[in-house]
């Protein structure tokens, strides 16, 4: 757990990087700091491992005030991932990952074998271990960066725009990978980004900061989309927030309709096991739209309805059997019902 | 020692006689200017060509490295033996020293111009000649002057040795002092050469700053911007 209490950072020239921040990043969660450049998000992050010291206020890591600790020792116990990975060009990938364990006094052989396992864990072929960073792609380098941060078994991970320098496709891969790793490892992660989509995708909690270093809103991503506290947050969260919010609303209580056999002329064709194969209108056979599977979000439910040629989406259970139809109106109704966030 | 040096510098004959300090200084500057000029006439066009076309890059690098290892004194005495005493062998030997830094500076300046700017110029319909003289040359000027600076210093230093092959210049004091066991005269000559080199260096630094756009906004010692004059490492002084 990381607690910021009344933390302020002002520089000698008078610039205030952080006005007064109080915030708690909970154990085992991903807490994202997001905001435009100049909002003090990176400063906030760097105060946790004392790369920057606050002008006033305290930061506690699992209850211990970090200002009482020797910086290098403190840092060896906190994983750190930055943009462009910052790998050591003169060391092999394996030795890069082994850096912190070796600093902590573990034997090189032991650290290396542990590093090999970590490489696999972040989705890399262990054979890249003997290469130099310059021989890897940007995405691979960033994975090594994550492995290196995990190598010290630190319970806390600081990530400063770790995925900003890679292209969008690779970025999405890395984000998925982080969520998968986090579900296995359950570290306490403080994550800085300027990309609100990334914040919404990764964060259990999202802190939106304003230029000048004040906290505008601190909420789970769904609440941020549903109820931005002011124009700044609404503007920052951006377009399509209503639509994007759908992915945080469960479709469990969605009222499914039955498929009429006559009426508008559209017939759903199913196979012997009850799985949908297509639509039929008169003699025309038409392909299915997207299919909503039970347990997915309202976003997939609406998409199923909007993409279906008949205007009615198809919902299936986990075996793929048809369980009902989705009327767009039902999605909207459910959305309105959930608009008053239950906090 | 110091008092005899002061006496040496203070003697009126030093400043008026035909073999006095002003004459020696002018001779020294004359050899230097002539050699650098001849070197530039050869090196600059070649550097422009290589920089613009990218052909013959290895030649520049190889030449800069190889000539640096060539002992100046040896080259000088060899030329004198081959061509006889006089100004020509000295100027040729000194020119040989001036060429590598001038060539490297010109080449580095031209090839260092932002390719996007050259591309844009070509896209706007400029001819290759217009690109070279209108876009590349102005942008290459700081590095070209840096090359000129290195070449000049190298030549000023080596011109001292010209006295060894019976020419004038400030080196005379050192060589004659050595022959006459007159250490005051040697030291006086050495100090004059050092001062001349430093004055030229400062003056050429000024020129370099004047042709470098935007230097005022960006201090040369800013750690983020490696100071101009990197071609210094291209050749060594003598």
């Amino acid at each position, binding site marked *: 757990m990381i607690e910021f209490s009344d933390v302020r950072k002002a520089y000698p020239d008078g610039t205030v990087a952080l006005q007064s921040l109080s915030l708690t990043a909970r154990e085992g969660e991903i807490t994202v700091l997001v905001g435009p450049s100049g909002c003090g998000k990176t400063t906030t992050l760097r105060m946790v491992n004392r790369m920057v010291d606050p002008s006033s206020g305290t930061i506690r890591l699992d209850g211990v005030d970090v200002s009482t600790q020797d910086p290098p020792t403190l840092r060896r116990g906190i994983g750190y991932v930055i943009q*462009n990975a910052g790998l050591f060009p003169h060391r092999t990938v394996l030795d890069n990952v082994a850096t912190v364990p070796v600093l902590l006094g573990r034997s090189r052989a032991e650290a290396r074998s542990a590093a090999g396992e970590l490489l696999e864990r972040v989705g890399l072929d262990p054979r890249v271990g003997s290469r130099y960073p310059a021989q890897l792609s940007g995405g691979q380098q960033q994975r090594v960066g994550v492995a290196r941060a995990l190598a010290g078994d630190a319970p806390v991970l600081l990530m400063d725009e770790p995925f900003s320098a890679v292209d969008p496709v690779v970025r999405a891969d890395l984000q998925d990978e982080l969520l998968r790793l986090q579900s296995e490892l359950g570290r306490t992660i403080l994550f800085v980004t300027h990309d609100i989509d990334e914040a919404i995708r990764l964060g259990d909690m999202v802190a939106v900061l304003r230029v000048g270093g004040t906290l505008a809103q601190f909420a789970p991503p769904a609440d941020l989309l549903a109820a931005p506290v002011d124009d700044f947050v609404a503007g920052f969260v951006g377009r399509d927030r209503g639509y994007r919010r759908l992915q945080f609303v469960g479709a469990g209580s969605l009222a499914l309709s039955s498929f009429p056999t006559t009426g508008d002329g559209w017939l759903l064709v199913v196979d012997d096991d009850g799985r949908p194969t297509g639509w039929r209108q008169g003699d025309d056979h038409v392909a299915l739209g997207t299919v909503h599977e039970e347990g997915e979000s309202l976003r997939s439910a609406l998409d199923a309805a909007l993409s279906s040629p008949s205007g009615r989406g198809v919902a299936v259970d986990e075996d793929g059997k048809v369980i009902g139809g989705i009327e767009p109106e039902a999605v909207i109704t459910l959305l309105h019902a959930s608009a008053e966030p239950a906090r | 020692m110091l008092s005899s040096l002061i006496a040496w510098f203070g003697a009126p004959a030093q400043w008026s006689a035909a073999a006095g300090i002003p004459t020696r200084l002018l001779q020294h500057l004359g050899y230097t200017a002539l050699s650098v000029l001849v070197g530039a006439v050869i090196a600059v066009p070649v550097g422009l060509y290589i920089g613009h076309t990218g052909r013959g890059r290895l030649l520049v690098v190889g030449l800069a490295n190889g000539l640096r290892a060539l*002992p100046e*004194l040896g080259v000088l005495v060899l030329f004198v033996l081959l061509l006889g005493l006089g100004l020509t062998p000295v100027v040729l030997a000194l020119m040989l020293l001036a060429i590598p830094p001038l060539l490297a500076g010109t080449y580095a300046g031209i090839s260092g111009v932002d390719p996007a700017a050259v591309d844009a110029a070509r896209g706007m319909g400029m001819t290759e000649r217009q690109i070279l003289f209108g876009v590349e040359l102005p942008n290459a000027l700081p590095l070209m002057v840096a090359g000129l600076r290195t070449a000049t210093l190298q030549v000023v*230093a080596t011109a001292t040795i010209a006295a060894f*092959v019976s020419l004038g210049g400030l080196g005379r004091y*050192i060589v004659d002092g*050595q022959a006459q066991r007159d250490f005051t005269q040697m030291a006086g000559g*050495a100090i004059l050469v050092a001062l001349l080199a430093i004055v030229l260096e400062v003056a050429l630094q000024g020129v370099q700053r004047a042709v470098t756009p935007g230097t005022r906004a960006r201090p040369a010692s800013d750690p983020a911007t490696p100071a101009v004059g990197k071609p210094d*490492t291209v050749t060594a002084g003598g």
Partner: protein
Amino acid sequence: MRLFGADILPLAAEHIVLALVPVLLGLVISLPLGWWAWRSRGARRILLPLTGVLYTIPSLALFVVMPIVLGTRILDPVNVVVALTVYAVALLVRSVVDGLDEVPSEVLTAGVAMGYRPLGLLVGVQLPLAVPVLIAGVRVAAVSSFSLVAVGAIIGQGALGALFTQGFERFYTAQIVFGLVSILVLALVVDALLMLLGRLLAPWAAARAPKKQGV
């Protein structure tokens, strides 16, 4: 081995010592100075122009002035060694600064964030990464040093440079050509050895070249 009336091998050995000892001394002096100039803006502002001025002084002038500064005799080889050390320092302080500047800032940030202390970071990360630039500087210093030693012959301390002064006095072209070639060969051999040393100390630098960084 006697050639042109002189014992060549001892002369060559003397030439190597006179050329390389200053480079070694210069490196030892330049490392702390360069590190200081890299760290402190003020030190950089003083040291870099100062080394620039030192580098400007013609070698013959420096050889001649050395006895005044050091109190040595005019014919003492120490004059040449010290003067060439001055050049090596003038050249290498810049190389050390450039080499340390070469270390990417995110690498430094990562090092600090992982808990390196300043000395550990310098020895374990910064200096190894500065090696390619540093070796390039040492190569320039060493090669120029071989040619500068010969200038000492004018004041009677030039090792193989004596071949030039004697050859000139005797109008003996072959002796001069032999001197040129032997100094050139020595310098280029040392240069090649230094290049190999660089490869050995920084195997990773070769890994950087063939493949451009991409995603």
